[in-house]
């Protein structure tokens, strides 16, 4: 038991305090020391430049120390030497933390290149900082590594390009990418991103503004001239998608249908852009327009009013909240 504890103790001290000074532990201690010193500097109120110098030193020691430690301990998951990648990531996060703002895309894109640069640096510069030409085989391997890094960088760029597309055309995100040979959706995105929903809401507001609480004959005349009215509504609702590139892909149409009591007006936002269904799809919102007889004031007055003309019915518009997605194109109007 004692022997076991002694072995363990030896191993721990051997890990923490190496035999010679030229070891990765020394560099890690330097990193920790300058990191602690940067806090001392901060609390003792030195200038920003002093703090920057100390912190930069700490970062440099971290990069060297971690890379050295990973390499010296032969930490190679799946046989891949990860030391340059970790060091490259540290360098990138240091470089892009210097500037304020969101640099995640730039940092990820240059990360593979920085890592290859770190690998290539010792091959091209000797210990006394003189340039040298590596052996042909090393050169060939560095070329391969550089090409691989460029490929990884391209993949990152492609990922960010996809995000640009989804910012330009948010409706695309609500579609299904099952047939794509390039992308995979790893989480379901709510349909709420579709640009058709605000468009339909704006159209609903227009219809309500024009028809709600208007005399019933006016409603019927309005519906007869639906095509002309839709031109107006389209113009009014254009501002909803004004700052979006996908405005050109949405087409607003409407179809009336008479019920036994009033009309049902189907407002449809037709997506004419890229879609998983070859026929495209559309979102629809159904509005019910019903006549409503204004309430008569008293029952006793009713008897006297029989001879008088009945009060004109007023229209009442109510729209459904859902905007179900239908595949294909809207059926042509029959009748």
């Amino acid at each position, binding site marked *: 038991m004692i022997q076991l504890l002694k072995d363990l103790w030896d191993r721990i001290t051997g890990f923490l305090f190496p035999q010679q000074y030229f070891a990765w532990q020394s560099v890690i201690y330097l990193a920790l020391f300058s990191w602690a010193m940067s806090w001392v500097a901060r609390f003792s109120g030195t200038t920003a430049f002093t703090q920057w110098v100390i912190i930069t030193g700490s970062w440099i020691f971290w990069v060297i120390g971690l890379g050295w430690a990973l390499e010296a301990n032969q930490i190679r998951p799946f046989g891949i030497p990860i030391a340059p990648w970790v060091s490259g990531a540290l360098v990138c996060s240091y470089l892009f933390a210097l500037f304020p703002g969101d640099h995640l895309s730039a940092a990820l894109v240059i990360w593979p290149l920085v890592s290859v640069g770190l690998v290539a640096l010792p091959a091209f510069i000797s210990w006394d900082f003189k340039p040298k030409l590596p052996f042909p085989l090393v050169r060939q391997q560095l070329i391969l590594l550089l090409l691989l890094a460029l490929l990884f960088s391209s993949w990152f760029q492609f990922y960010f390009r996809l995000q640009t597309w989804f910012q330009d055309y948010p409706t695309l995100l609500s579609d299904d990418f099952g047939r*794509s040979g390039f992308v995979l959706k790893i989480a379901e995105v709510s349909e709420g991103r579709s640009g058709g929903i605000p468009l339909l809401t704006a159209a609903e507001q227009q219809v309500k503004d024009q028809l709600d609480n208007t005399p019933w004959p006016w409603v019927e005349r309005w519906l007869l001239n639906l095509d002309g009215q839709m031109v107006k509504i389209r113009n009014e609702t254009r501002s909803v998608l004004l700052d979006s590139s996908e405005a050109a892909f949405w087409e607003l149409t409407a179809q009336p249908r008479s019920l036994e009591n009033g009309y049902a007006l189907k407002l449809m936002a037709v997506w004419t852009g890229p879609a998983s269904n070859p026929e495209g799809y559309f979102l629809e919102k159904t509005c019910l327009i019903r006549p409503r007889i204004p309430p008569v004031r008293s029952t006793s007055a009713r008897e006297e009013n029989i001879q008088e003309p009945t009060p004109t019915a007023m229209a009442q518009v109510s729209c459904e909240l859902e905007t179900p997605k239908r595949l294909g194109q809207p059926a042509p109007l029959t009748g």
Partner: protein
Amino acid sequence: MPFELLVDEAAVLPLRAIAFQSLLLLVAIAIEAGVLRGRLKLGFQPSIRYAASLNLFTTVLGWFLFLGLEPVAPPLLRTQIISYILFGQFYNNGLSGSLGAVVIATGLVIFFVTFWVKAKGLEWLTLEIGTPIVDYTPPTLTRRRYGYTRRTPQDPPTTPAHTLAVLHANAWSFSAILLLLVLRYGLEVLS
């Protein structure tokens, strides 16, 4: 912040592109290495290294061209590219009638451009690592004057061996990739 990004924005990842590209690259490198080894009498390792370098180089070149040209493409073409990448098909717009011809023409152009790039790349690569595959001693001009009739048997053939080898390698790897793509498309149609 990266985690938040992963949940919200990054719900769509180009994982299939990465998987397919890795697979196609491996197939192409294996085939081309075999052809280069057989035709140029190279060793196992050099031919694999050359084939890997050439194919990675053309792939990276292709990515750069795509990433550089996509934002400046005309909107009609750009949305068709988006449609193909996201949904595996083109959609109906003013261009859809002529897209088939465009795709075939692009494929042919890509074949010949990659062939040329690979042939030049092989010359440069072998020169760079110190085992040039073509010797750069300038040909003596006097011999050309006499034309074909006076050509001695030692004369180099009009097409260098490495160019022919790269042409064959490129043809084989493109055929294999085309076959794989057709198979994938066929499997998708069946399922």
